[in-house]
């Protein structure tokens, strides 16, 4: 048989033809016999909604002073809100974005790492976040000063990639914290020591003075009850006088290559670093100087630095949800902060350029990044999209910014 006369039949030519014609009416028959019920919610939706609720309504349940400028706040579900029964699950090291209304009426949100472990949080149905305030702090003091037991908060679902993964990380972990950057490690140390038997951790905790070594009792206790698995190295930069405050050997100075080499102990290590941007840069240099090779470094930092310079301000024309707004901005603050000052309530989560939640489109003008944001997609970069939380204005701008979908909206 020649190829071009190939004749394939399934049930015989006529029956195949009839079948072809009737498979259209087959469709109608199947529709006729199917259910006329309205289709209901399904499985993955349930899991999605419990893991990633659009907003969590929480109440401050307890306030515990950690030192003069730092409090831990216990947050529980506000059961007066419909559907608000349980807190959303998280991985140790993740953060919550918390919305606050300032006295000026502006609403802003800031990310805070969760400091209790998933086990503790699940048991208590409560998150603990630990917040340092003060003039050099990333957190505007005004944000939390009025919080008291019973204060109602709107909080995001848990976010962030700053967590341990046994498929990726080494069996020896080195955690490096600067100042209030210790908060995710409180959760991670607790979680890993109780659930991952083969993992050992060295925590290097940097602070200025002994009072700023947050959770020192907890880490002392963990070190005593996990010999060989957990080592705590507190490092103070401004004082060596720890008499009566810390019952532990304390190193002095900055977290340098010698301390890091000791923490890594010649073992292949995954490093987790959390703290101010200046500490990240310092540690990067020390690692190079000491010729220390790491399996990988994961970072969490607290916001893009920048303060008003008072230089000639720029004008930003903002297109948002079908409206156009014109605001004024300082050249040394991020576009995101300018949008917040302008009362536009823009979306934000990580505030370090990595998560992309604030993504917008730069239609006209020029911005600069102190450091190229890690999370920017290549096609976005090429097509003029930007991350306002990391970008500072260089000229007058025209931008298109999505309205805030979740925690900053009043529904």
């Amino acid at each position, binding site marked *: 048989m020649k*190829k071009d006369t*190939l004749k*394939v039949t*399934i049930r015989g030519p006529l029956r*195949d033809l009839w*079948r*072809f014609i009737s*498979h259209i009416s*087959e*469709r109608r028959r199947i*529709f006729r016999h*199917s*259910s*006329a019920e*309205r*289709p209901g919610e*399904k*499985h*993955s*939706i349930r*899991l*999605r909604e*419990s*893991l990633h609720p659009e907003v969590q309504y929480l109440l401050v349940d307890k306030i515990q002073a950690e030192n003069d400028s730092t409090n831990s706040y216990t947050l529980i579900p506000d059961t007066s809100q419909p559907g608000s029964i349980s807190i*959303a*699950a998280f*991985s140790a090291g993740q953060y919550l974005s918390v919305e606050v209304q300032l006295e000026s009426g502006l609403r802003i949100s800031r990310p805070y790492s969760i400091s209790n472990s*998933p086990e503790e949080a699940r048991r208590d149905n409560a998150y603990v976040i630990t917040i340092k305030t003060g003039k050099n702090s990333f957190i505007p003091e005004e944000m939390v000063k009025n919080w008291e037991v019973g204060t109602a908060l709107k909080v995001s679902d848990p976010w962030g990639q700053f967590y341990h*993964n046994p*498929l*990726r990380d080494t069996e020896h972990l080195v955690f490096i914290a600067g100042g209030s950057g210790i908060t995710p490690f409180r959760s991670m140390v607790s979680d890993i020591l109780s659930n991952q038997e083969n993992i050992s951790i060295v925590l290097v905790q940097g602070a200025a003075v002994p009072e700023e070594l947050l959770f020192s009792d907890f880490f002392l206790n963990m070190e005593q009850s996990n010999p060989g698995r957990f080592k705590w190295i507190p490092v103070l930069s401004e004082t060596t006088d720890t008499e009566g405050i810390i019952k532990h050997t304390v190193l002095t100075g900055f977290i340098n290559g010698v301390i890091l080499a000791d923490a890594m102990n010649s073992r292949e290590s995954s490093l987790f670093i959390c703290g101010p941007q200046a500490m990240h840069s310092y540690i990067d240099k020390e690692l190079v100087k000491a010729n220390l090779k790491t399996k*990988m470094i994961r970072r969490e930092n607290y916001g893009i630095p920048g303060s008003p310079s008072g230089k000639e301000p720029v004008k930003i024309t*903002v297109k948002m*949800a*079908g*409206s156009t*707004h*014109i*605001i*004024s901005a300082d050249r040394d603050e991020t576009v995101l902060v300018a949008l917040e000052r*302008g*009362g536009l309530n823009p*979306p934000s989560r990580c505030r370090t350029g990595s998560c*992309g939640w604030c*993504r917008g489109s730069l239609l006209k003008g020029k911005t600069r990044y102190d450091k190229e944001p890690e*999370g*920017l*997609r*290549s*096609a*976005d970069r*090429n*097509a*003029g*999209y930007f991350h306002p939380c990391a970008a500072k204005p260089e000229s007058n701008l025209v931008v298109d910014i*999505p*309205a*805030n*979908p979740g925690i900053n*909206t009043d529904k």
Partner: protein
Amino acid sequence: MNSETVADDSPEVVVIGSGLGGLCAAYELSKKGIRVLVLERHNLPGGFSTSFVRGRFEFETSLHELGGASAYEYLKNDDFQLEFKKVPEAYRLLLTENGTDFLAPFGIKEFSDAIIKAVPGSEGPVKDFMKVCEESFNAFTYLGDNSPPDPRLLFKKYGNFIRTGAAVTDEVADAVKLPQAARDLIYPYWCYLGVATDKVSFSLWASMIYSYLNFGAYIPKGRSHAFSVSFARAITEAGGEIRYNAEVSKLNTAEGRVNGVTLNSGETINCPHIVSNVSPHHVFGNLIDPAQVPSKAYKMVNARKPGFSFFVVFLGLDADRETLGLTDYSYFIAPHMDTTRLVESLKNRHDPNPMQATICLNAADESASPQGTTILSITAGTDPKAWEDIDPWDYPRAKEEFADLLIRQFEKATGTEIRSHIEEIETASPETFSRYTAAWDGTVYGYEPAPWDGIIPRVLADNKERFFKGLQFCGGNASRTYGFGSSMLSGKTAAEKTIAEMNS
């Protein structure tokens, strides 16, 4: 507040959802000067067609390869400025139970020759099978270009297409006496449709494999996110508007026609024409007031079976692919190629031997990740139901376990060692897809194309299955079925139909 507010013009067409179908529809409409407003609940365009960054790696969320000429030609459009890389081979198949290791080349002749060489005596059946596939593909092309078609020409020229048009793939393989060993080598593409070969519409299957094998496949630079931003840019440049973080909570109707949408924020936008990239399940089930939905619409939705979903492990590796021994672009790894049993295994996320489709972007595009690194993504099908018993607090561990299993399976089948090279790892489950795209039940593929719900019945029934005037559907649940090219081009069809309705 030192700002001024200016209200903009009301839209002529609202597009709900900015998946590729919605974007393509909005692009086609705005290009013709029609005022379009796209409403997207997420903060990014593209739905599944996007990417994400971890450390120094940018991962592709869903596209394995863009196959077939029509989507590729469409995207070569000057408005888009996209750059493509050719995928080197069709696939490498590793069947662990019988030790099959088969490299399938692109090109109908090359592919057929490779099968015939691997399965002695299969020449006649393999050639016949590929010939019927070609005829189905050509018939679809004819039907796409000629509406209404000439029945006499259709029967005369495309007789095999007609006779196999209501059949499933196994029936045609039986009819040409295709040996089992040859089926094992030809069937792996089943996973791009996600329906077993004893259930899938042959004409759709045939057209799919023919277009892949005959034309080859490509990936874009900048991941499929580049498709989405290109469309988004072209839409805004043509005067259209896209609003992100704008979830539609209601589709408003009166007297059998649509008249607008209401957003989660409470804002109502009036508009007589709507293109929905959102599934009919969601539109009829959740968005339209139940008092307005005819029971026929519910029956239609309930009769159709949403396709399955995926579990994906995204790996950024700290060595180049030569060092790792990753020679190929696309790996299909399975215990066997009995597609019915493979589909069955999707219901159990603890099945020790699932099928995985794994791609190494660097094999098509060396610059896909920084020098000295490699991107590998492992995909396994999974039924959303397989995730319903998970306690949210145990979810991270459940993902770790599935990822661990797939990495072990890959290493064992390929004889490579990748675990110690993992620098970045991320996973996606049906929950993840549900979260980012709001696809019904976290499914990735649209309604299953059984013969009665294949392209031909969908196209022929389209006008009878419209329950509201002014409403068109596009995307993976629409008439062309799913996949990147089909979902996207369904937007073009929806735009054409909307324009016809506007002019009538």
